[in-house]
């Protein structure tokens, strides 16, 4: 019972946060970021229904997001023209139903097996739909996309959703509802069986379930929620282009879910929030933000396969045992050289990038509130020394951290990986 209460406490805290955030961050830009974050949270959570819970690695999840968005925007357009009655808050549901329908169509033949076959079919479908969206122009609008006007839709119990904040609350409401439903889904018998299919499909068959059926149900549910995210995208931006279905978007959602941690329900939420922050904040400071995101992603795959959430969860047992302080010094010892290494790498990358984009005769790069002359060898040497030195020192400190870890961990067997 106490576990139930605690889980609910997290949901209430999230709700309060979601309600209060636009009151704190009032500017239009920050509300736009919050909108994007909410949409991405739904999209990533739906992706993790497949990868984390069902063991299906998809390279084409944007298909359901984008097609849901397209169908939703067509409905918005028609309803705006007075073709039928459609209140604005229900637009995402249209996208969800479209995602569900396409999930049924494509899932019916792609969920026979998991693993690499599934990944390859999802890639094929992803390429197919992305290429088709540039060919079937009447449906997708080609490169210009399809636009609609949300103000043309009928009001909902007198609410018109004019202005940024009401639209944010609409999106956030859908986000909370979808997240809660997805969480509940993971606790249903089907959701539990999806985990079983992920871990041991053969045994599931012996117990009497059809692994294909369970995968298909998971797949369709994931398509439904991806469609809701797509519908919210259509509603928020009033335009859906080829970008929403293409492989880059499919890649981004994999990136988000994995950086956050696919083994935990909250993982994709953290991933989506972090990615959106990186995308919007980092891009103010550097043009090569996507490269840094790629670095973080590859580092996550290599050294922290449980993602950011996994890293946080690793520390929970130690925190409960009250031994977190014993880790502070080892972390500081490894953190400072790691920071130096990061500074060096960032400096080198920025200088390198500057070389390729600079105008002729331009030689001074502003970085870290300082100026560097890229034609002189000194900045390069300094950054390279920082990167290399930091790396070597950090590596020397790593065993000490591991020892401190072992000492602090209340469970002798080490932290749970998942």
């Amino acid at each position, binding site marked *: 019972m106490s576990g139930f209460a605690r889980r609910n406490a997290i949901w209430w805290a999230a709700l309060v946060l979601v309600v209060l955030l636009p009151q704190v961050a009032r500017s239009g830009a920050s509300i736009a970021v919050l909108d994007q974050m909410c949409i991405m949270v739904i999209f990533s959570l739906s992706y993790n229904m497949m990868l984390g819970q069902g063991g299906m690695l998809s390279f084409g999840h944007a298909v359901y997001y984008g097609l849901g968005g397209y169908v939703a925007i067509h409905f918005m357009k028609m309803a705006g023209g007075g073709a039928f009655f459609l209140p604005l808050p229900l637009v995402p549901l249209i996208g969800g139903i479209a995602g569900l329908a396409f999930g049924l169509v494509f899932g019916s033949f792609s969920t026979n097996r998991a693993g690499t076959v599934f990944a*390859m079919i999802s890639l094929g479908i992803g390429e197919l739909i992305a290429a088709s969206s540039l060919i079937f122009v009447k449906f997708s609008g080609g490169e210009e996309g399809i636009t609609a006007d949300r103000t043309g839709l009928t009001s909902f119990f007198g609410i018109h959703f004019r202005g940024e904040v009401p639209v944010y609350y609409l999106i956030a409401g859908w986000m909370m509802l979808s997240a809660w439903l997805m969480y509940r889904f993971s606790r249903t018998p089907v959701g539990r069986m999806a985990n079983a299919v992920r871990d041991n499909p053969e045994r599931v068959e012996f117990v009497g379930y059809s692994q294909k059926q369970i995968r298909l149900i998971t797949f369709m549910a994931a398509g439904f929620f991806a469609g809701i995210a797509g519908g919210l995208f259509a509603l928020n931006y009033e335009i859906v282009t080829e970008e929403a279905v293409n492989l880059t978007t499919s890649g981004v959602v994999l990136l988000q879910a994995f950086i956050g941690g696919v083994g935990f329900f909250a993982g994709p939420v953290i991933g989506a929030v972090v990615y959106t922050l990186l995308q919007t904040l980092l891009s103010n400071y550097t043009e090569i933000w996507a490269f840094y995101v790629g670095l973080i992603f590859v580092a996550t795959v290599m050294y922290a396969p449980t993602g950011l959430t996994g890293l946080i969860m690793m520390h929970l047992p130690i925190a409960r045992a009250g031994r977190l302080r014993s880790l502070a010094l080892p972390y500081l010892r490894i953190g400072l050289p790691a920071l130096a290494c990061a500074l060096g790498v960032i400096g080198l990358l920025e200088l390198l990038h500057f070389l390729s984009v600079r105008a002729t005769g331009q030689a001074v790069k502003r970085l870290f509130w300082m100026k560097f002359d890229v034609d002189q060898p000194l900045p390069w040497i300094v950054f390279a020394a920082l990167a290399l030195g930091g790396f070597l020192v950090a590596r020397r400190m790593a065993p000490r951290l591991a020892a401190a870890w072992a000492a602090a961990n209340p469970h002798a067997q080490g932290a749970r990986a998942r």
Partner: protein
Amino acid sequence: MLELTVFSLLNGLVYGLLLFMLSSGLTLIFSMMGVLNFAHASFYMLGAYLAYSISTKVGFWPGLVLAPPLVGVLGALVERYGLRHVHRYGHVAELIFTFGLAFLIQESVVLVWGKQMVDYHEPALLAFPLFSLWGTEFPAYKAFMLAVSIGIFIALFVVLTRSRVGLIIQAAITHPSQVAMLGHNVPLVFTAVFGVGTALAGLAGVIAGPVLSTFPGMAAVLGSIVFVVIVVGGLGSLAGAFIASLLIGLLQTFAVAVNYSMKDLLAAFGVATSRASMLSDLYSVTVAQIAPILPYLLLVLILIFRPTGLLGKREV
């Protein structure tokens, strides 16, 4: 019509053999390590860009010789210090790792060479039309590409079937532990195969760069097609990869030359169609327009109906 057939055949052959240069390495790597290397086409792109950088300094030919080994060394390093590390987390993690690597290489190309297409072109020595039939010219450079690809195909065939190294590689594919027992360093063989495979991809990039243009999206353009090739051919089968490469190459070059649509077919049977509805595109697009999606359609169909591919023995 004859002109069209001859030139589509030639172009399809050039394109198909280029695909084989990429897919041969990919399928070898797959049959050894069981990992589909998402970043394979990224090494192809790196080959083109490195050759471009070298060609601006010392000319095309040094680039042709130097860029592929450079890419190969890079590939070997990735295998040794990246892939082998991730291997312990399983195949899905490896797939995700190569996917991340593809993303990273893409972004590093943008970082170093910029987002614009670079002016990488064929050497002056080969910038002339080799012959001209019915008023259409066939560039000598394409004949050069053809020659290089055929040379690589023969060399690969001879090395794999006739040489001692080839025997060890073939044995390591099916019986890695026994090969290790006989005293061969199997992990080193893996690294070497990975390096050679990526070097071949790099070579494909070096010779394709001037024709297919060198830009940061070039890996994405070919990356998925190469997957189609090795899945259609049958994973792990070199002969299958060869047949599928030519098949896909010809399919794509012939499809862009066919200007008929479903509407024309229906009209031939006396069925009239309207252009009004939103889905009218479905039957009014021509075969030429849907050429880009044909390989993926083939991929999905093969995976549904014949997961072993044309010549493969094992399922994906």
